[in-house]
């Protein structure tokens, strides 16, 4: 069935649920249950990480298509099946998710003291949803995982969050749900047009141009909220500020990538004409996001909020890269997504370290920490520099590639989107100075302790990955080179081909059964190839 001979992706996806079932079956007094839940969750996520390393070893980067494919009939008569598979674009996100989950569980070891069992359960369910979303090759399956993420994340923010957690949780939930339901309509329209929800078929289906525009807007509503793009980013600062540290890490590290992944998986390859048509809109929104949110970040007094706004700015760079629709831009966007996943996650962990000690995120309450916490200062500096995009760290590679990609589109685009690097340096260095440098004058900071061994263990893998990605980027980028090249090639081929379906009206304006158009749609896939 695939190159490892067993359903590896399903195992990675659903093993956390098994761990969750074990956690739920633990009985005893509260302390025992909590301790068992922690260890079970950690071991489950580590085993999942180990399994996903098999992906790393056995994945063949030379192939552009989907690997480790699995397929089971589910709702066969309607062309819906349980289909899993990864290509160069998705495989590293699976690894990112499985890497960040044990890190988060370890980071909440002591920070979460109430309802530990439920917290660990929610986290494992979240891991299932995230990994499943990146592996899904069927649109209905994808949508189920994509939306399913909301349930555990809503509970994580709402139950274990800060003082305004209820507001933040409900805002997060409704914002993302409102976007997603419009994608549901796009899903239904594509299903009706192609007669199947198999994404490998949808990728080869040439949708008529008018329909592409509507589909693109529906996808945009969903993915723009998730990325988040300006002006629908306002849920993010609230959610980040109120979420517990581990929740912020996953939110910044993986959940934001779901939107950009959606653009790369659906919008660009399935709707090539619409992507080119709407690219200027995407550039505008992205550039506004980069400049505006960077300036907003400069003015923040709350550390988590500052990093949240910086995330919006960094994701703006990602969307510029994706819609530049050339190899450098898309590769840069992918690299930036991976780098941002690790680096912003680590920055939230850095905030979490001092928050756990002082229980405040106010920048003004800190200062001069480098005296008492040298190891922490060094770690924070590394991730701060990576976020800024210093050469030698992971942040640099993505930024420079996106800049090159944007330059091939338009000089001004490249110039404006690169101002994010300068502004990024400004707000990050300013943050760093206020928190870590200067004289240690606040009396309650005199007793603050440096990183504990557990915290050092949390940061260690992230430090390694950040430097590795910066020093030897091709060990990551060779995973997606073939897939990105194929993506860009198909996009350009579709643009070059005369839009044969341009005159077709939107599907669904007449009553026809599902599948009636599948044959013609697949038959004309020469357009896309």
């Amino acid at each position, binding site marked *: 069935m695939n190159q490892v001979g067993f359903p590896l992706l399903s195992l990675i996806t659903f093993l956390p649920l098994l761990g969750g079932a074990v956690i739920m079956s633990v009985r005893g007094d509260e302390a025992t249950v909590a301790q068992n839940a922690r260890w079970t969750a950690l071991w489950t996520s580590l085993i999942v990480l180990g399994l996903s390393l098999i992906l790393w070893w056995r994945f063949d980067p030379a192939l552009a298509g989907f690997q480790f494919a699995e397929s089971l009939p*589910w709702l066969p008569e309607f062309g819906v099946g349980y289909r899993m598979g990864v290509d160069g674009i998705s495989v590293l996100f699976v690894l990112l998710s499985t890497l960040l989950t044990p890190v988060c569980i370890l980071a909440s070891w002591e920070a979460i003291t109430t309802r530990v069992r*439920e917290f660990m359960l929610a986290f494992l369910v979240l891991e299932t949803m995230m990994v499943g979303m990146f592996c899904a090759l069927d649109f209905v399956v994808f949508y189920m995982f994509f939306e399913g993420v909301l349930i555990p994340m809503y509970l994580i923010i709402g139950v274990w969050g800060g003082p305004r957690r*209820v507001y933040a*949780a409900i805002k997060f*939930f*409704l914002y993302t749900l409102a976007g997603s339901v419009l994608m549901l*309509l796009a899903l239904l329209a594509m299903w009706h047009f192609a007669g199947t929800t198999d994404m490998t078929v949808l990728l080869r289906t040439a949708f008529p141009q008018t329909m592409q525009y509507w589909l693109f807007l529906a996808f945009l509503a969903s993915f723009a909220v998730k990325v988040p793009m300006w002006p629908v980013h306002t849920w993010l600062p609230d959610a980040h500020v109120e979420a517990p540290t581990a929740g912020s890490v996953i939110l910044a590290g993986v959940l934001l990538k779901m939107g950009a992944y959606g653009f790369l998986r659906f919008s660009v390859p399935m709707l090539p004409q619409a992507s080119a048509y709407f690219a200027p809109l995407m550039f505008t929104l992205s550039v506004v996001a980069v400049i505006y949110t960077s300036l907003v970040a400069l003015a923040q007094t709350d550390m988590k909020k500052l990093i949240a706004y910086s995330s919006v700015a960094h994701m703006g760079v990602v969307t510029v890269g994706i819609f530049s629709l050339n190899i450098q831009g898309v590769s840069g966007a992918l690299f930036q997504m991976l780098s941002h996943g690790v680096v912003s996650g680590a920055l939230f962990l850095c905030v979490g370290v001092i928050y756990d000690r002082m229980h405040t995120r106010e920048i003004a309450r800190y200062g001069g920490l480098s005296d008492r916490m040298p190891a922490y200062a060094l770690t924070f500096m590394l991730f701060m520099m990576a976020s800024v995009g210093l050469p030698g760290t992971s942040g640099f590679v993505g930024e420079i590639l996106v800049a090159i990609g944007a330059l091939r589109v338009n000089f001004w685009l490249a110039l404006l989107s690169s101002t994010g690097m300068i502004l990024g340096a400004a707000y990050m260095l300013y943050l760093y100075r206020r928190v870590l440098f200067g004289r240690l004058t606040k009396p309650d900071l005199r007793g603050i302790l440096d990183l504990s061994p557990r915290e050092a263990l949390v940061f260690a893998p992230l430090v390694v990955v950040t430097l590795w990605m910066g020093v030897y980027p091709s060990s990551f980028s060779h995973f997606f080179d073939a897939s990105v090249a194929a993506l860009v090639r198909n996009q350009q081929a579709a643009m070059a081909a005369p839009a044969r379906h341009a005159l077709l009206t939107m599907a669904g*304006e007449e009553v026809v*059964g599902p599948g009636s158009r599948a044959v013609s749609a697949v038959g004309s896939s020469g357009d896309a190839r």
Partner: protein
Amino acid sequence: MNGTLMNWTLALPEIALSLSGMAILLFGVLRKEERGFLASMLAIGALLLAGVLMTATGAGHAYDGQFVVDPFSVALKLLILAGAILGVALSVDYNRAEGIGRFEFPVLIVMATVGMMVMVSAANLMTLYLGLELQSLSIYVLAAFARDNLRSAEAGLKYFVLGALASGLLLYGMTLVYGFTGTMDFVGIATGLADPAQASAGLIVGVVFILAGLAFKVSAVPFHMWTPDVYEGAPTPVTAFLSTAPKVAAMGLLLRLMVGPFGHLLAQWQGLVVLISIASMLLGALGAIGQRNIKRLMAYSSIGHMGYALIGLAAGTVTGVRGVLVYLAVYIFMSAGAFAVILAMRRGGRAVEGIADLAGLGRSDPALAMLMSVFMFSMAGIPPLSGFFGKLYVFLAAVQSGMWTLAIIGVLTSVVGAFYYVRIIKVMYFDAGETGFAARPATLSIVAAGSGLVTLLFALFAAPVIAVAEAAARALLG
């Protein structure tokens, strides 16, 4: 009328259920059964027996074409029986605790069930009315079952008066249809209307009256006014029952009538159903936001859900009918489960009904809170729970028929609806609450856990359910 046309064995489940109902009544009277437990168990047995008999009987017309058994009616009857069984199971402990545990209760549910089964098997306007009234009269009594309780009596009376009005509308519509087509037989009406020229204004008025009468039964806007009051006032197990089986029966009847005998008038009634559907979705979503009483909230929620189900009817296609059936199938389990949780809300020997009373449930009873979250997320239509599939298939029907307005309003109201479902979860988990509820009886735990499993794991057995719905829809549309 000769023996082959009688074909009475097709109605064996209904006959058996009626006889069992009467037998339970006799048994109750003779045994002077006060608690009603044994009668309830016997009623569940009778309902199960009817379900078994149903799989044994064949398909075809009976009673000279007045009664039809086809995959459509079988599918709906199974849902109705499931709803009735859940309703009886939910009532046992509540009724005893409230001092209304009398043996008449399960008997009335059994009789209402017989009425509903006749409704969905009707092939003639008279049969339809017969079933409908048997069902309605039983439920009027049930709504007022806590006769010493003012609110319950009021609910029963209100339901009776408005229900009688709806029956009047329905009858008036039926006479018009009979007058203009000359037959009460569904097949006869369908053949009579095959020629569009036959669709005179009087006939259309008749169809509109019938639609209005049945819209009352499914509590669709603008015939929904009774719903919040009756839901709130009636004893909670009756509310639970009201929200499941009768909804299925009325919706089934509506489907059979509209796409069957009036199928050729699709162009005439489609706009009306679209309007009713949109209004129901909007009112269901917006009306629930301000509610403090969870039973009233469930009333608005059910109005909204019927709005979604009506999307499928508005499409008027096989996909649409299939969507409605899938929606009803997932809805009765979500609803029964949610009501099991509501019934478990007892504190100090009294039932509490405020949404705020759920505060802190996540801590005091994690299992119950988790089940309620499953039902609420499912009602909000979040995958992978069953409610998502219900919505998926009705929206698919709307998209296939090109009804984009309906689909877009549908998904947007589902976001508004999500707000109040999610608010309940917020109350349970995020708000600090009082002490927990009294220990919940085993029946409630079983119903809640069973419905919870169905809701949670629907994705695993969606294919056979959808296949059954597809077969039923094809039987209806031919």
